Structure formats: C-alpha cells, structure tokens
C-alpha cells in the first residue's frame, strides 16, 4: 500500500483525471448559481473536444484549437440559454437534447471531414509545463510539475471563480438571481442578462474541459470520448455544494478513486471489485459524507420578467 501511495503517477493521474471533471463542474456551478439547471455539459464538452482538434489541425496551433473550442462551446451554451431563459423551455429536456445531438453531430463531422481513419496523427497538442526549481524536488516535483497547461489553468480558474462568485458585486448578483429572481429584479438587476452570463460561463469552462480531453491529454478525437464526464461533473458540483472549491475537491476525490483503481489493477484484489471502486466512492460520498446539499432556491425555474 505504501508503495502505491508513494508512486508519483498515482497523484499525477489523480490530477489528470480530476481536471476534465472539475472544469465542467465549475461551469455547472455558474449556471446553476444563476438559476439555470445545465446538464448539457457532456454535450458541450464533446463538441468542444472535436472542434479543438479540427481548429488545431487546420491552423497548426493547439492554442487556436483551444480558442476555437471555447468559441464553439460558448455558442452552444448561448443557444441553450436562448431556449432555456428567453423561451423558458424545460431545462433538463433541453440539456438532454443537446447531449444526444452532440454525440451524433460530432460522429458525423468526424466521418465527413476526416474520413474513416480518424483525426490526423500530426495534430498539435497543448504543451506540458515544467516548473523550474519545483521540478527538481523529488516526488513533489514529479506530481506538481510536467502536467498539461490546462491543469494549471484549471487551478487558477478555481481560485478566480471563487473570488468572482463570493467577493464581487457581479458574483453576488448572479447568486441573487438564482436564489430569488423577483427580489433581484426589484433591486434593479437584469435577471435575463445574468442568466445568459451564467450559462455562457458554463459553456466556456465545459469547452476547456473538452479541449483538455482531445488536445490536452491526447492529440486526437474519437466518438463519445467525453464518456459521461459531464454527468459525473454534475455529481461533483452537487457534492461540492455549488461552490468552486467544493467542486474541485469532489473532482479530486473522483479522480483519486479512478487513479487508485488503476494502481490496484495488478494487486491481489479482484479486478471487478477494483473497477467498481470509483463508483462506490461516488455513491458513498453523495449519500453520506457530504452532508446536506441545498441547491440555489430558483435553480431550474424559468423566470418571466414582470411587465
């Protein structure tokens, strides 16, 4: 056991597997804090993962790939917001529609644009970052240094989001809109505009998460490669009580469970039990350890401005 815990790969795999959960969980936090239930993170991630590869391949730059992915992700999110906020549609059904659409749409584009042998093998990848000095510290250096740039970006975004949501006026207003839109409007806040902002931010963060899967960890796209991470991110967000640090902590826990199950595959334990480990931990975390999670009061309730 000691040998496993002292293997730096356990901890870097934890970070690597937590990142594509923490980013959409953070996105979901913004959306739901503003009062819009967004289960479309899965679909937005998948679409962004595809466009990241497409733009990276066309421009020869992984950075432009990331930018393209973010723009496309936000466009999808704004379309979602238009239907959910302006047209007051059922948000869960809308989210499902986007997820189903994303799966078929990206498979179709993959076949029509790149043909049947998949995305080109020379697609550029986002760089891994080696931090000077820290990288030379044994053990700690191997974990903290040499990760994909998105991992560091994710950590910065977590801190920035916490500050934004809980220490700025705009953050307070977003939260007010999600708790009591009538009162917020009475105070002169534009509910519709802020809900658009919340959903657009969820598109932004989910898109970065999607781009991480396709051009951060790898340099290729394959069908349905988000493989349910958008949904696990929802669980991480709820477990994290709709806060950036909470979401991050929950994502780290799920990432750790996955990394641990990978390490334990060649131990004496049965493989079937080991492969269940991340899911058992998720269920335990959600029912017991987390305590009571209270969602924003107006979460999922469409709002029609008073005339």
């Amino acid at each position, binding site marked *: 056991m000691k040998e496993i815990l002292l*293997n*730096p*790969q*356990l901890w*870097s*795999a934890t970070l*690597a*597997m937590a990142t*594509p959960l923490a980013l959409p969980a953070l996105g979901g936090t913004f959306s739901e804090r503003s009062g819009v239930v967004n289960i479309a993170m899965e679909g937005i991630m998948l679409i962004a993962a595809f466009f990241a590869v497409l733009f990276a391949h066309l421009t020869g730059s992984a950075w432009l790939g990331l930018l393209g992915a973010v723009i496309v992700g936000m466009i999808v999110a704004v379309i979602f917001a238009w*239907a959910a906020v302006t*047209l*007051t*549609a059922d948000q869960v*059904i*809308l989210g499902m*529609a*986007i997820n*189903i*659409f994303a*799966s*078929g*749409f990206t*498979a*179709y584009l*993959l*076949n*029509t644009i*790149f*043909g*049947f*042998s*998949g995305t080109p*093998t020379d697609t550029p990848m986002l760089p891994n970052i080696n931090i000077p000095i820290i990288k030379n510290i044994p053990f700690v250096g191997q974990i903290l240094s040499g990760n994909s740039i998105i991992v560091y970006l994710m950590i910065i975004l977590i801190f920035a989001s916490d500050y934004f949501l809980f220490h700025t006026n705009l953050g307070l207003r977003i939260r007010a809109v999600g708790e009591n839109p009538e009162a917020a409007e009475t105070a002169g806040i534009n509910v519709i505009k802020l809900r658009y902002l919340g959903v657009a931010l969820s598109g932004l963060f989910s898109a970065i998460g999607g781009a991480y*899967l396709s051009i951060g*960890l*790898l*340099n*290729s796209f*394959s*069908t*349905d*490669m988000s*493989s349910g991470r958008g949904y696990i991110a929802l669980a991480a967000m709820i477990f994290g009580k709709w806060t950036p640090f909470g979401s991050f902590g929950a994502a780290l826990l799920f990432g750790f469970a*996955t*990394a641990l199950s*990978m*390490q334990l*595959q*060649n131990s004496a334990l049965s*493989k*079937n039990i080991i*492969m269940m480990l991340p899911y058992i931990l998720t269920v335990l975390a959600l029912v017991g350890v987390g305590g009571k999670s209270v969602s924003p009061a107006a979460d999922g309730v469409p709002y029609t401005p008073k005339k």
Partner: protein
Amino acid sequence: MKKLRAVLSLMLAFVLTLSLLSGCSSATKQQQSSQSNNTTQNAKNKDFKVGLVTDVGGINDHSFNQLAYQGIEKAKSELGVTVNFIQSKQQTDYVTNLTQFAQQKYNLVIAVGFLMKDAVEQVSKEFPDTKFLIIDSDITDRPNVASATFKTEQCGYLVGVMAGLMEKEKNSKLNDQNVVGVVGGMQIPPVDSYIAGFQQGVKAVNPDTKVLVSYTGNFNDPASGKQMALTQISQGADIVFHVAGQTGDGVINAAKEKNVYAIGVDADQNYMAPDTVMTSALKKVDVATFETIKNALNNNFKSGLVYFDLANDGVGYAKPIKDVPQSIVDKVNEYANKIKDGTIKVSDQVQK
C-alpha cells in the same frame, strides 16, 4: 407563452431528428455512390445487398470496426455488390439497426462484435431468409447465421514472444526491470484471448518477465487508456500491448510520450506513432467479411462457426519496426510454425 412552447417543441424535434439523421446520413451517401460507381458491373451482383452494423466503437476506431468496413469496401469494388452501413451509438441500438437492414431485404447483414450476440440471435429468428455474419461470437444453432471466430490467442502469443525477447535487448526505450503491460478494454472473451496468448508467449521465451494486466472497462475513453498505460509504465513496463479499441489510442499516446514501446491490436497501427508501435497483433476481420460476402454471393454461405487462425492467415502480426532485430523476428516465425503444425497449443484463458 403557448406559442413559444410550440416553437420550442418543434425545435427540439428538429434537433433530435437531425442527430438521428447524422448517424446514418453518411451511410446513405455511401450507398448512392456505390450504385453510381458500379453501373458497369454485373446486375446480379449489384442486386446483392450487404449491410454492416458496427459496434459502439464506430467505423473510425482504428480497429476491428474499421477493418470490417474495409472488407465491405473491398467487396464493393471487387465483386460489385451494394454495401451500406450503420454505426451503433449504444448497445440498445443493435436490434434496431440489424432489423432495419433485414426489413429492407438485405441479403447479408454483418454484425461486428461479441456484444451483439443476443441481438443477432433475436433478429435472425425474425428474419429467417436474411443471412447474418457475426464477428467474434459463437452462434451455432441457426441455419442463417455464420460466426467468425478468430484465434487471437495465437497472434497474441506471437507478439508476446516478440515482447519477451525484446526485454532481453538493450536500447534507449527499454529499462532493465523486465516488466511488460497489457491494457484491455472490457473483460470479455475476444479481449481476454489476446491477453492470454500474450502472457503465454512472453513466458515461453522469458519466464522471469512480469506481465501487468489492466482493464479500463470501456472501448471509447482514450483519456483513461492513457492514464492506465502511464500507471503501468510507472510500475516498470517498457512495452505496452493494448486490446482496447479507441481507448488504446491513449495507450499508444502514453507510450510515445514516455518513450517506450507499444504494440497495436487488430489492424496495423504503426501509422499512429511510427517509432513507438513496434508491431501489431492482427485480426483480419477484413478478410473474414470479404470471404463471407464472396461465399454468400456464390451461394456458398456456410452457417455456424468459421475459424480464422494462423494456418489460414486469419490472424498474424504486422511487420515489426527496425528496432526489432532480425534474430527476434526469425524466432517469432519459428514459434508461428510450431503453432501452425500444432506443436504448441495456445490457451485462451487469462492467468490470474
């Protein structure tokens, strides 16, 4: 308010229809182009319709779905038959997709993959006049179903022999820990037969080598494949064999990043990382689909189990890269001959 809801429900219906269409629109295009290309071909062959239903990995999995597709493409160009395909998005699509082809009076419907066994059993009963081919399964009690079974433990054995011998070599990609790894997708027989062969092959030439075996539990998550391979590499593995479909893309990526060797599966995957993928264990699904189409076209369709092994060139290994010395290749061929003449029997059961 009511009007908005009406607009919205229309829009939802549109989005859903579009996403369904996107699953099969490329297939329709395929069919049209095949019809226009083959106007000069024999009319009887053109009337022979072959439908391919892929597994969830999809046609661009660099692996067995893609090989099956290459098989029907070859049949289209060489035999002039009409071909079409549908990609399954999830396991619940199998029956629907198979039925769709059968209802349209396709002569031969090909189901790619072990996971489709139940679906083929069900649909083949409802459409006794349609012929079915299932890859990687063992349906024997239907007069209209052929099951192509690949002795992949044999090619797994050969790449295992190669890996075991490479562990005795010295170069910049190899360490001295004498550990190799296998990353499997789901723990199902067609995956395990490869792994079992690999274990026996390694042990045959290098009994001290430790063989790590891990499963990711999926075939379409390259991110987890990469982390699984990195984990094995951190445990000392310097040759990683993947039997994991698209998940394996991540395994090859990890091997490239950490400067160790990878071994591809099903198709020759060297093009994915030319210096990294030292060889691939081949399962010639393209040969199986083409041969079955040809036989069915000539009224020679055989139901029940059809074996593909080293002896009839149904499995094999891809040409190794130049890092693998000729002496090792010779040794591997020696073992191949021993398997062909029955001196060595390879088991398909994974050792715990």
